[in-house]
């Protein structure tokens, strides 16, 4: 078992004929994901460079391929619309990789997806991977370790891309496998958040422990801490990036900003520690922190 995606997941790529979309569709295919087609307006009826059918609309793609997941590489000005199209076409999971989408667009798109009952991952994220089964996104596949019989597995939730790879690699080199890794993205308004995913990992029999990687900005980690205290019985380790970040500056991610005294690393670390979470003080000891519980 795993959460969100597995061997059976049928995936289309919106933006499959663009540079990033084509490149990463190829990497996902190599990894073994069931990529079944793509969407590129005006290019319907052709084949992609991978030999996959290309459709003009998401509705055509879903009808023809039976896809339930869409991976989106559409440029920022049109990306929120693409996410809504995927939901309207019947996709139950939308993985939005695109960076730089206007916040108001995401506010509208998230509400639309909620109303349609579709789940959203991202935007501005690496995507989601269930190691050994299905990779949807831009993370390097080989650093992950699939669950095997008897091995201990962690589920990973993270606001950062490369910092997730760091945590994954530290687990893999220690022999700890990963059930599913979800990059929830660095934007202020997004899809699935810590709380929803903590709940899914808590209920997933293949997940023995959970790593969450947060950063400055907003109060999602504080809310996650309260949820962990109330509902999560599996061990949780965490790292919070941005302890040295100055207030009022956006640190690369649109959502990574301390404003009006809210969103500091200290506040998040304190809340997580109070909830019994092992908080690593260095990005180099995330694997160590979770290994202590397994």
């Amino acid at each position, binding site marked *: 078992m795993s959460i969100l995606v597995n061997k059976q997941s049928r995936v289309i790529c919106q933006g499959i004929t663009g540079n990033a979309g084509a490149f990463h569709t190829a990497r996902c295919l190599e990894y073994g994901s069931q990529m079944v087609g793509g969407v590129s307006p005006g290019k319907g009826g052709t084949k992609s460079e991978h030999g996959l059918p290309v459709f003009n609309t998401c509705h055509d793609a879903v009808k023809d391929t039976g896809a339930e997941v869409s991976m989106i590489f559409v440029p920022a000005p049109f990306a929120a619309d693409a996410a809504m199209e995927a939901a309207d076409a019947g996709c139950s999971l939308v993985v939005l990789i695109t960076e730089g989408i206007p*916040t*108001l667009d995401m506010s*509208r798109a998230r509400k639309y997806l909620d109303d349609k009952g579709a789940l959203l991952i991202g935007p501005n994220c690496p995507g989601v991977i269930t190691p050994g089964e299905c990779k949807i996104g831009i993370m*390097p596949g080989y650093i992950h370790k699939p669950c095997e019989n008897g091995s201990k597995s962690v589920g990973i939730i993270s606001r*950062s891309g490369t910092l997730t790879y*760091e945590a994954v690699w530290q687990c893999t080199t220690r022999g700890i496998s990963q059930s599913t890794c979800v990059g929830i993205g660095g934007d202020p308004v997004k899809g699935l958040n810590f709380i929803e995913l903590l709940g899914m990992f808590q209920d997933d029999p293949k997940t023995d422990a959970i790593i969450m990687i947060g*950063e400055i900005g907003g109060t999602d980690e504080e809310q996650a801490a309260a949820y962990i205290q109330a509902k999560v019985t599996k061990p949780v380790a965490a790292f919070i990036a941005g302890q040295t970040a100055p207030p009022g500056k956006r640190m690369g991610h649109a959502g990574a900003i301390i404003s009006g005294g809210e969103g500091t690393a200290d506040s998040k670390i304190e809340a997580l520690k109070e909830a019994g979470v092992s908080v690593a003080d260095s*990005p180099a000891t995330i694997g160590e922190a979770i290994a202590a519980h397994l």
Partner: protein
Amino acid sequence: MASTMKVHEYQARALLAEAGVPVPQSSVVESVDDAVAAFNKIGGRAVVKAQVFAGGRGKAGFVKLCDNTDQVRQAADFMLSNRMVSVQTGAEGIEVKKLLVASAVDIESEYYVAVVMDRAKRCPVVMVSTEGGVEIEVVAKEKPDAIVKCWLHPHMGLLNFQCAQLVTKLGFTDKAQAKAAAKVIRGLVDIFLKYDCALAEINPLVRTTDGEVLAIDAKMNFDDNATFRHKKLQEMFDPTEENANELRAKEFDLSYIALDGSIGCLVNGAGLAMATMDLIKLHGGEPANFLDVGGSVTTEAAIEAFRIILSDEKVNGVLVNIFGGIAKCDTIAEALIAAAQEIGFKIPVVVRLEGTNVERARELLEAAKIPQLIPAEDLTDAAKKVCAKVA
């Protein structure tokens, strides 16, 4: 993106006026004579205000209430010939080029009205308070009940009953004044949605002794992700108070923020870049910058990144931390070698590479034999080495 775009007070006033929000009569001037002419045109008392982004204007003497032309001349001359130094500017201060001369009004009561994005609720929220004229953070801390909030439906915006509720909470009972207050709230929401604001704030909104409702001061920040669709905002952009290196980095799609320490950082990914700064601090060093080169970095951009880092005179060591995913380690290694040849490293550069094509990257670096390049085994080793080098 490293920052949120701001506009000056006079520009925010123009946006308010365009949205039908009443503001006192005013002019923007760049000389003492024009300031006096603007004062005479207004007729009566006026406020002269320096148009800069930095706060602390009042305390620094860059906001002055004037009753006559001599006072206007004196205030304008002072503001245009001195650099403004406040807690937010640093000791060197900033040059003032533009002044706003605005009609002064007799205030009966002050209010606060703002629209911001509520991240947790994922929609814009309108906040109003009868505690206007003071910083809202102070009100939030000391009298949280004095702030009334109203969340907007992402697809429907401000509904009539919500607007009416807010006007009532502000205590407007006179029919004409209530109508005017409603127009202000509606106008501010329109601006927020139309121009993709991150913050649209009127503080204070006032009721004058003769019953007028006017926006006295306004502050607006915009979502950098959305400025591509607002030509008007692009034209309003004023780079004079921005950090030159931060602007330069932006041109190369690099995300750079200058800090005060001595160890330069070059990292891929925003989260890892922040974590690298934290790691340096943990091992006793001080980071000189935040720098995320992004996922698809080119050799040219990486060389530029080095130029920017090394142009900071405080920097006496650099930590390169790359976890190759899409960004390949060998690309970074090639850029490192090219930068060393083009710029020449006079200070130690500790390099930690992991991930995609790391073996090839290590071979390249070894073959290049650059004495200042110090390879690191892992993250902790990298931080220890660079901190030891600059200590």
